[in-house]
């Protein structure tokens, strides 16, 4: 797995929540260090409930 995959942030186009792989989403069952691509398709944005497909890659 390349370094960029596990550090690439993704942003929810619906509400602006940023998924940072370093933090994961522990309360949502996603441990820190999980690349966005490895998150299950059933996961949704912790703020607004949007699906994975509503996320796009995000550069700071």
């Amino acid at each position: 797995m390349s370094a960029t995959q596990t550090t690439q942030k993704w942003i929810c186009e619906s509400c602006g929540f940023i998924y940072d792989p370093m933090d994961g989403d522990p309360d949502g069952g996603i441990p820190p260090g999980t690349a966005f691509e490895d998150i299950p398709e059933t996961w949704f944005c912790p703020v607004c409930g949007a699906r994975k497909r509503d996320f796009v890659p995000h550069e700071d």
Partner: protein
Amino acid sequence: MDTIAVEEELNPASWRDGKRYAWLLGLIVPLLPFIAWAYVELTGRGIFWWWGPILVFGIFSLLDAIVGMDAENPPDSVIKWLEQDRYYRWCTYVFIPVQYAGLVFACWLWSSGDLSTVGQIGLAFTMAMVSGIAINTAHELGHKRASLERWLSKVALAQSGYGHFFIEHNRGHHVRVATPEDPASARLGESFWAFLPRTAWGSLRSSWELECERLRRTGGGPWTWKNDILNAWAMTVVLYAALIAAFGWVVLPYLLLQSVVGASLLEVVNYLEHYGLLRSRREDGRYELTRPEHSWNSNNVASNVLLYHLQRHSDHHANPTRRYQALRHMDDAPQLPTGYAGMIVLALVPPVWRRVMDHRLLEHYEGDVTRTNIQPRARRRVLKRYGGGTGAGAVA
């Protein structure tokens, strides 16, 4: 700068949170009925049943002006540590049992027959302050992932009957903030009194649509206990039924009054948080991502401490799951002239509100009124008063 950051990483306690113990002052709010009763007992004066609104609108407005501002931010390296410190969570959890002890106490007073009618109504307005600010506590809790905190959010909402806020705020408002489609984002030229029915009805309808859609995706219809609006409202029904059973029907009109006024308090806060601000449209037709410039902020310490940093609103929209103690002041975010307590008083008097806020809104958009979120009914008046603007935003 680097050595300081390293030092804080290894020893986060080297940075001290100046507001750490101030957050406990937030508990003054659920204690209001007890404080009101104590003042009435001590002085014999029934005016103190109105202590809730007197404190919030009278005293806190003054405190905002006197105590002043605090734009200090925790260093980035400390934010994670600050967020996981459970002390801060407990400040919000403790709000809830005190809130309900106060409500039971108020019902006992309402049913006692000792208060005059004016006193009963004053106590209802005091409970409305608790009710409305409890929605703010519910806001903090409802943004978290842990199911305990989300459940506590609904519990806090039961008093005001505003359970649908739990759905609409995260999945509606945070998605549509600062656009004309958001019932909870106020428009230039829209008075608070016009905004109130629009947001109350619009948020209710939107929350129902959102929840129906969620349930449809899991293959079910809306009429189920899995419907988070229905199960939240059910808490209110059970709560009111229990209070009526214990204290009699006499408490019902006051429960309803504190619910309506409490919800209105929340809505006036919605009014001032995004008044007139507008996200522009991208080429693909979608709205741009929410940025700090799309929320009004305030650093007045007194109101901030009462409201768990709600006034650091831009950072909240940028980081909605961030815990209140770690929210930051942002320099490039538009600032209100005073804290929420004072701003609420201004919002209740539309000509004063317009005088104070409209020019600030225009300055924020460099004089171009077409970049603001304008109330359609007021559009002609607004454009005539503030100019037709330049380029793409101008009306043909």
